[in-house]
C-alpha cells in the first residue's frame, strides 16, 4: 500500500511551494504519495503545471478554509 509523506508549504509564496515539493518528492518512493498543504492561491495553477512538466501525477486537489491540499504520486 502507498504511504504518504506530508509537506507543509503554508505561508510560502511562488516559487517556493514547488521548489520544496521538488526537493521533498526525491525522498518519496516510486508510486508513493506526497501530500502538500499550501496557502498561496497561485499554487492551484502551478501544481497542475508542475505535475504536467514533471510527470508526477496530481491525484487530488482540494481547498478547505483557505488551505490548499494537493496529493501527488511519484512517477
Amino acid at each position, binding site marked *: 500500500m502507498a504511504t504518504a509523506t506530508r509537506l507543509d508549504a503554508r505561508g510560502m*509564496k*511562488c*516559487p*517556493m511551494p*514547488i521548489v520544496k515539493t521538488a*526537493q521533498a518528492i526525491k525522498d518519496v518512493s516510486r508510486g508513493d504519495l506526497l501530500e502538500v498543504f499550501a496557502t498561496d492561491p497561485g499554487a492551484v495553477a502551478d501544481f497542475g503545471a*508542475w505535475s504536467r*512538466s514533471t*510527470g508526477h501525477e496530481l491525484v487530488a486537489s482540494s481547498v478547505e478554509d483557505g488551505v490548499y491540499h494537493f496529493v501527488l504520486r511519484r512517477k
Partner: protein
Amino acid sequence: MTAVVETPIPQPFSQAFESAEPTTKQLVIINWSGELDKMWPTLIMSSAAAASGYKTSVFITFWGLLPFVKNQRRVVGENWMQKMLTLMQRPGIDHLKLTKMNFMGMGPWMIGKLSKQYNVATPAELLEACQALGVEFIPCQMTMEMFGLKREDMIDGLGDPAGAATVIELMTQPNTASLFI
C-alpha cells in the same frame, strides 16, 4: 508515364529515431543585469524551471556577474576603474539595487520590507534553492576579465566560465526556452 518510387528510410536511421531518448526540456537565461528587479525574476524562473525538471542554465555576464561575487567582498578588480565599478554597484546577492526608483536605497528597502511582510523568498534564499536544484550558473569569461574578477571572488558552485558560442549552442537546442533578463 511517371513512376513513383518510394524510398524506404535506411535501417540505421529508423532505428536511431526509435531509440532516441525523449528530448530534455531546457530553460536558458542570459542574466545581463545585476539589479534586484532583474535578479529576482532570473532566480524565480530558474528555480521554478529546475523544480519542474527542466535543465536550467543561467549565463551570468556583465553587471549580472556582480551578485555572484561573495557578499563580504566590498571592492573587487585589479585596476582603479574596475574597483570604481564595484564601488558604484556593490557586489553580492544581499546588496542588490533597483534600476528604477532606487531613491538612495529607499526603493530596495521598501521592497525588502514588503517581501518580508508577504513572505516572498529573498534573492539569497532563491539562489540557495537554485543551487540545491542543480541550476547551472555559467560565468562569462570575457566580462570576468573585464571586471577584474577572479574565481576566488565568486561564490562556490558556479560552472566553468564560458563564452557566447556556448550560450548560442544551449539556446538553439530543441525544446529550449531562452530569456534575456
